[in-house]
């Protein structure tokens, strides 16, 4: 099972504010970002990755379609997840964050997203076999590890600062 990024459309932020945006001077403390998934093929969402920019707390709500006949409803997956322990200081302000599906206590993430197509039947879980979702996340970790090791170079001491014995320099470069 390989991991791929799901194409998504991130809309601009909308401020939640009481009163008229134009006349009131207060700055809104809550902004909403809508994320939609244009592809219609079913997928199982494992991880959400983003770079923070001065957001202190994050909540995630998903719109869940249960069946063709009942209207879609909004479910909160994550409430007030703390990104900045002290919002008035820089801690966590520009950090890269990953949210994994197992962090969502209601575990509604994979279930509603991985709706089987009309011809598919859900595979019965056989006794003695490992849970596929746990295996897939462990495989992902090993994949991340091997990627990391492959990407980093061995720390051999090179020692030479010259080029073929020559170190005649003109000026320092500004790039």
């Amino acid at each position, binding site marked *: 099972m390989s991991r791929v990024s799901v194409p998504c459309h991130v809309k601009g932020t909308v401020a939640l504010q009481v009163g008229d945006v134009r006349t009131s001077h207060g*700055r809104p403390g809550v902004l909403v970002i809508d994320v939609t998934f244009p592809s219609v093929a079913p997928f199982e969402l494992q991880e959400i*990755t983003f*770079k923070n*920019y*001065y957001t202190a707390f994050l909540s995630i709500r998903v719109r869940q379609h249960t069946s063709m006949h009942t209207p879609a409803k909004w479910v909160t997956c994550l409430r007030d997840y703390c990104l900045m322990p*002290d919002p*008035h*200081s*820089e*801690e966590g*302000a*520009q*950090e*890269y*964050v*990953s949210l*994994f599906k*197992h*962090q969502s206590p209601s575990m509604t993430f994979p279930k509603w997203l991985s709706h089987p197509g009309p011809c598919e039947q859900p595979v019965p879980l056989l006794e003695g076999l490992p849970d596929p979702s*746990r295996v897939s*996340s*462990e495989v992902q*970790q090993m994949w*991340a*590890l091997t*990627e*990391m*090791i492959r990407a*980093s170079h*061995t*720390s*051999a*001491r*090179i*020692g*030479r*600062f*010259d*080029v073929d014995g*020559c*170190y*005649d*320099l*003109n*000026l*320092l*470069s*500004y*790039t």
Partner: protein
Amino acid sequence: MLQEESDISLIIAQIVQKLKGSNLYAQLERQAWASLQRPEIKLESLKEDIKEFFKISGWEKKLQNAVYSELSVFPLPSHPAAPPEHLKEPLVYMRKAQGSWEKRILKSLNSMCTELSIPLARKRPVGEQKELLNKWNEMGTDEPDLSLFRPVYAPKDFLEVLINLRNPNYENGDSLSFRTHLGLIQVPLKVKDIPELKECFVELGLNTGQLGIDDSTQVPPELFENEHVRIGQKVLAEQDSAAAQQYIRQGSPTALRAELWALILNISSQPEDILYYEQLKTNVIQHDLLVDSLIYKDVKLTASNDDYYFVFEDYLYQVLLCFSRDTSVLNHFAYNSASPPKSYIRGKLGLEEYAVFYPPNGVIPFHGFSMYVAPLCFLYHEPSKLYQIFREMYVRFFFRLHSISSHPSGIVSLCLLFETLLQTYLPQLFYHLREIGAQPLRISFKWMVRAFSGYLATDQLLLLWDRILGYNSLEILAVLAAAVFAFRAVNLMEVTSLAAAEAVLADLSTLKVMPLLQIFLFATVT
């Protein structure tokens, strides 16, 4: 939790990767091969037997020390999506500020080059090489004409840059309001308050014995000192870095300090290290660098004029000139917000295969840089050991004192910590000094940038640096700076100008650092 397991796996993988290129790895491999001769190593239980052998022979401890060293120095692996510059410095505006500051330094060095018509680097003619080799041990007797050289920058230039740091996302307003900081630093970094510092520096508390307090002549040595020395000898016998680091929080006995620092920094002088130093020396002999003149000038202006350090002048050249040629220092730029300056071989401008770093170690010295080395000369007399210790101290601690970053031990955080401590616990003094135009940071900045070297008496300085090693943090510098102001508060309240305030704080050579720190943290009514 799955996430924690994968974090630990990543850390382990990173450390294994780093250690694979080290001498220790080669030594362990050799030892493992050699151990196959031993009767207790059986083929059926090969792995366990070799592991047991490593434990008994002390090699496991060496590996533990190496792992501990890596954990202390390198930051934890960050998010897979984070680019390398994020590891250097997570905040974009700080990275930009560091980049602009570096550009200024490069311009300054370039204009010095052009004005004086001196190349950045040149190969020495054979005659000159012989001459330098002959007087390697007495380079201090040389009196080159350095009048045209000027330091690339002084701490006060750097302070101006830090004062102008702004977070573009931070609404401050230009006029003074309750949101602007009263001090000079205007960026909202998180700094500890006294309750948090008390927790962090718990071993400095009133109920714990300290060298620097409980070893004074009035205190009978049976109460603390003798036992502390005995424990220190045991720690050294065990050769355990982590234990040494914990031990040294209460100070190091003078006789044990050199060995303890080497153990904590994981420095052992192997033949390879001595050879490496000799190679650096050869590089100094062969190539002449412009930064050499800057180093000469700095030593002549600072250490040579200091009553405690002038005797070590020759050692300082032997360390600093070699330091400039050491490419292994380039590794620390992975976690330093600074970047090494780049240049091209003459005539090959823009061709990447002829791009080099300048100086080879990427560090341009500033006014006072040699003071980072000087105190170490009291502890180490063998040049290659002295060199290794200084290099490790630089890539662990000193680099943070002259680069712009948000790290808690970075100079920006130290300045903010100092100002915040003073404002919170000595508000009257802070207000008074501000009113007379004597912002406290303008006086204390130079102490912190130099880690107090050249300002305190050497025995006191070494007690302070014991704690830097023990806590793996430079925050103690900011606490001491605030404690010094607290100590001289009465005199400072009476002055009416910046010059007078500076005069009150000009001479710190009589101060005893440990009592000051202890009183400020644990005995001041808040």
